[in-house]
């Protein structure tokens, strides 16, 4: 009775996943597959000429390099400030923690368009940041922030850092606080405890955070458009430009496929690393 019951249930459970997975197969996976096919088809023959043209143009390599560099910079800085911030969030109690949590969740209610625009006001040469820097005597003349990569990374980190903090915070909450304590009691130096106990325990959160921020930064469109403009091209901007302004759909879908492949690499790589870490644990 028990055996057949459990088996009968197991046979039917997968059906529950059908609506959701089916939805995504039809409206997400299939269209992406068709886009991939379309990028090889010029009017009615299959060819890789679009890719040969794309990779033959040094300007496109410059775009790829821009995109990868800003994504790397953004996720690196997010990790650098997000990792300690996640600990501050986990250690805090009472109203301090409420303030931390609100400053993490509330900014999500301000649209990315408005946030990016707010940064253009702050980063302007006569903006608050420059005025403060000059008041503190750190600089004599305004630092050029807006329309530069520095300004772009400044805005991107601001938008994406919650996606680094939240997964790390989740693993810190699951971490047994007695483990670092025990390592300390056994005579481990603080640095040893950090590298050998705390870092390995938090690494799944770190991987999730990096994968998240890196893929978001790779694909960001609104932030570079408002903070740097046309002079600093990224893959997303090139896609939007080809589709919305140049009406060159062949170029657009070629660039879209290149960006898609980068994102797939990030997903697969992060899954692989996460699997390795789980296997070692």
């Amino acid at each position, binding site marked *: 009775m028990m055996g057949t019951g459990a088996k009968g249930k197991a046979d039917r459970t997968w059906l529950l996943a059908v609506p959701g997975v089916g939805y995504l197969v039809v*409206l997400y996976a299939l269209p992406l597959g068709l886009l991939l096919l379309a990028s090889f088809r010029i009017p009615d023959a299959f060819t890789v000429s679009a890719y040969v043209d794309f990779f033959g143009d040094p300007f496109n390599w410059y775009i790829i390099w821009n995109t990868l560099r800003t994504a790397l910079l953004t996720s690196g800085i997010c990790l650098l400030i997000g990792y300690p911030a996640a600990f501050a969030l986990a250690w805090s109690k009472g109203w301090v923690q409420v303030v931390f949590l609100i400053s993490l969740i509330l900014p999500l209610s301000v649209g*990315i368009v408005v946030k990016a625009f707010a940064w253009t006001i702050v980063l302007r040469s006569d903006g608050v940041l420059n005025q403060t820097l000059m008041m503190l005597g750190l600089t004599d003349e305004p630092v050029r922030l807006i329309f530069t990569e520095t300004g772009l990374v400044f805005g991107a980190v601001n938008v994406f850092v919650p996606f680094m903090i939240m997964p790390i915070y989740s693993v810190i909450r699951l971490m047994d606080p007695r483990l670092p304590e025990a390592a300390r009691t056994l005579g481990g130096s603080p640095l040893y405890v950090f590298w050998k106990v705390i870092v390995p325990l938090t690494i799944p959160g770190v991987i999730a955070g990096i994968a998240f921020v890196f893929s978001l930064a790779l694909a960001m469109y609104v932030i570079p458009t408002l903070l740097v403009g046309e002079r600093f091209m990224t893959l997303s901007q090139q896609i939007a430009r080809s*589709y919305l302004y140049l009406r060159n759909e062949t170029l657009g879908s070629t660039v879209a496929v290149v960006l898609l492949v980068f994102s797939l690499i990030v997903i697969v790589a992060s899954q692989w690393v996460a699997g390795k870490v789980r296997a070692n644990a």
Partner: protein
Amino acid sequence: MTWTERIARVLVWVIGCAVCIYLMAPLFVTIAVSFSSSPVFDLPPPSWSLRWYESLADKRGFLPSLSLSVQIALFSTGISLVLGTLAAIAVVRGRFPGRETISTFVVSPLMMPGLVIGIALLQFLREIGYRDAYTGLILGHVIVTLPFVMRTVQASLSLFDFSLIDAARTLGLSYPKALLKVLVPVLSPAYLSSGLFAFLASMDNYPISIFLTDARNKTLPIQILEYLEVRPDPTIAAISSLLILFTIIVLVIADRLVGLRRMADF
């Protein structure tokens, strides 16, 4: 405590506070600008006024956009809650191969470039001759709201004791009724937090929406960006400040119901 530990602790708190200020900065800027009397974005404002809130009342373009965005977000969040719960139950409860793959697949749109999803969907809908922008937007937004529900509900289900459902069935409830009476109440905190994130993600979506809108159906982020390009004035700040106020109210309610701590378990 040794010196290294003390320095590390101080560093963690300093960085934590700095990150909070940094995260809140665009909100303060937006609110400050919305109460400015200046037609340009002077910060700090020369004097305070409510003129941009008054101008918001005259602007006819924003209300339909706001209403459209709210409708799309409500529909796509609702659809995601149903589809996401079913898929999460299958993955947590099922004993079939490929469950890990399903959960990765359903969550993957979060890490996919929005513009690419938008283009692919646009070309697909065009191919099959589908032209209704309103439902097209809902179809597109479900792709980005579903991952939020899947993640949170799956995590919450893995802690749920499923023998409670068997107990309810033994007491005479049908399987769907047992799910509704036993499972749904247990999942409500997960619904509230994933629903909020999904709703906000939909309200804020620009990259997918841009390809699916038409002249009559423009979502709020698209309307705002267009307005900023044509005549940037603090009306945008006023509407954003109202949205911030709205979210604060929702967060206070959510805190009373489930607690903010659980919201950050992303």
